[in-house]
């Protein structure tokens, strides 16, 4: 079955229809909406390709819960929650993902 990704419930701090990257469900795909944080972190995330509505998929959490592995622009990278928090994404409703079919 295809995994349907819904938004996490508590996201008062972000605009409707979006969530933070660290809240994106495992296996879900979303588009980058904006990147925050201090200039240095923002630069790094942008340079790694978190821009222009790129698609990001949450692959897995590390066994101890942090960091989280993502795939974007055809490669994999891991971010601590603390950094992923600064990326706002818009999960595509009903987006299909190749992982974690339930």
């Amino acid at each position, binding site marked *: 079955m295809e995994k349907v990704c819904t938004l996490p419930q508590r996201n008062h701090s972000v605009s409707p229809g979006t969530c933070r990257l660290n809240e994106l469900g495992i296996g879900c795909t979303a588009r980058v909406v904006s990147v925050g944080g201090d200039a240095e972190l*923002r630069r790094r995330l942008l340079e790694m*390709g978190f821009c*222009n509505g790129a698609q990001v998929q949450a692959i897995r959490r590390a066994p101890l819960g942090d*960091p989280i*592995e993502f795939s974007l622009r055809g490669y994999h990278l891991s971010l601590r929650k603390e950094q992923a928090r600064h990326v706002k994404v818009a999960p595509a409703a009903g987006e299909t993902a190749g992982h974690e079919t339930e």
Partner: protein
Amino acid sequence: MSSCCNTKDTLASTKGILTVALAGNPNSGKTTVFNGLTGLRQKVANYPGVTVERKTGRCRLPGGTVAHIIDLPGSYSLISRSPDEQIAMEVLRGLRADTAAPDAVVVVVDASNLQRNLYLVSQLIEMGKPLVVALNMMDVAERRGLHVSPQRLAKQLGVPVVPVVAHKRKGIEQLKRAILEAKVAPMPDWPLPQEMREELLLVGGGLGLLTPQQNLERSKATAERLLIGDRAADLHEIWKQEPVAALLDHAGRRLARLGIDPMQADIEAHYRWIDAVAASSLVPAGQPLAEPDQTRGYAARATLTDRVDAILVHRFWGLVIFAAVMASLFVTIFWLAQPIMNGMQNGIVFVGHWLTHRLPQGPLKSMLNDGVIGGVGTVIAFVPQIALLFFFLAILEDSGYLSRAAFLMDKLLARVGLHGKSFIPLLSSFACAIPGIMAARTIESRRDRLATILIAPFMSCSARLPVYALLIGTFFASHSALVQAGIMLGCYALGILAAVATAWVFKRSLLKGGATAFILELPSYKVPQLSQVARQVWLNAGEFVTKAGTTILAFSVVLWALAYYPRLPAGREQAALLGGGPNAVTAAQSEYSFAGRVGHAMEPALRPLGFDWKMGVGLVGAFAAREVFVSTMGITYAVGDVENGTRNLSAAMRADRYADGRPVWTPLVAISLLVWFVLALQCMSTVAIARRETGGWRWPIFMLVYMNLLAYAVSLAVYQVGSHLGYA
């Protein structure tokens, strides 16, 4: 766009010797290309951050031109964050006094990860140097169903693009030819917001007035760097000037009012251009790269690396496997190598006697037998263990597992104030602290890097291995192999524990500061290349043998002389012989020697730790190289051996007695000595490298003091508590 076949001003015709730098993202295969071009054998492995220094080699290009090739650390961006990226940036921009500015740059691009790799290419284009793109990992890209067309990419970029499969040496000759045709790429028209274009034109125009020799395009590129906050050294002169600062300030404020962040707008524009370039370089053209669900290639990737990762980084099994990998690494080294090592030790003793049995009794025979064979030979016996250690490490390094291990361990390391990226430097330190400390260059935050450097020498390096193996194999021989391996593992664990504890303390005192960002690329898995693994083993075992043949040989001969001279005067020898037989003569002779006198002078300080004077001499020798401790034992016991060495070293050590008949060595003494070796910083090369990497004597001296004090204190505690509890 200019064609790329314009041969009029090729590099060859303008220069005698070319300087060519190899740039590219981490793990894109730069060093593999470098080895292919130069025939050298620099280290290659499957994790980002293998190369942390610039390395040069020579390459003869077609037509006889000679090129100096510079291999660089990988970087994601020319705006550097970590020391290794800084080196790459400075060499590329010609900012380093020790390296000639490159005449051309070969960008190694990972074809299977085109978009992110093109970001650095887009920055290099702005730099205005002649470029060649080596489109590497073509095999991986094809396997994922990504057909990148070099011709189309070349047309898009306006520079030569050579498809390469570097580890198979495919495309290297073509790359050599292409270097001669390197071209300055035409400046793309970045799709920037209109307001930012206007500001760039304004600032660029202003810069043009200050530096009339530059054309407007270059001035605009400089303006762009300034506006997005690049403060590299080559711009200092410019942005410190009053009019420039004013222009920038004005532009920045106007854009801010419009809600435009120049840095973000710039990166986004680069990526928009990249999306277009990547899309039209793929066959069939127009297949969007950014859609993981639609590109067949990404699905293909998901099958292999993700299937492996589903187990290796699994919530539960991931940790179990990690622990098992680490434990088996150290245990197998001990288990597998111990029998080979014992055999070798006996063999060496046998060969020594066979070689020297015709020589007359006297200093020459003693020097060869006891000094050279006793000293160097005992150390050489550990080659199998060293080779095994490097074999396992090379497999881990080239498989891609190390980045996963960093991913698994980040949370734990963060708890003691370290960083997932500290993992690889610390693991490398199990081989040797020197590459370990250098690998810390990939850590962006200076505080985290310092903390990593300060604790790296606690990881038990390969030079400690012979000491551990000798002591465990000698004094726990009656225990099962499992117990012995357990003690071995305990030594490594103690080092790790000490590292974790001190890191925790330092990050709460000397190196206080907030958590830092952790952004780590996870490369796809690969089957380790056998040739690569074999080369690592060969190189490192070779280095160990070389060290035994040089440093350790020299120290062994010196130590032998110190243990052999001065000889007892004939009168004293007679007295000893009459008093207590041949054993008493030996004891009197050793005590009379220089080494004996030095050792005895140290004894008051060492006695509370359970060490006798011979161990004291060994500990002093260990400051030259830790293995010298083993050769010291080999020498002192061989020199003193009245039956002239039919026993091996272990037997001689076990039989050693104090004058009152107590054994010199007990399991407790061995443990206390092991603890000392785990914790003490005895390696002067480590101190020297720490000085270089921290930029001063402060930290290395601090390391030397705190580690050795800790070693003394813990050994003391172990021996004293152990004796009181009744363990002899």
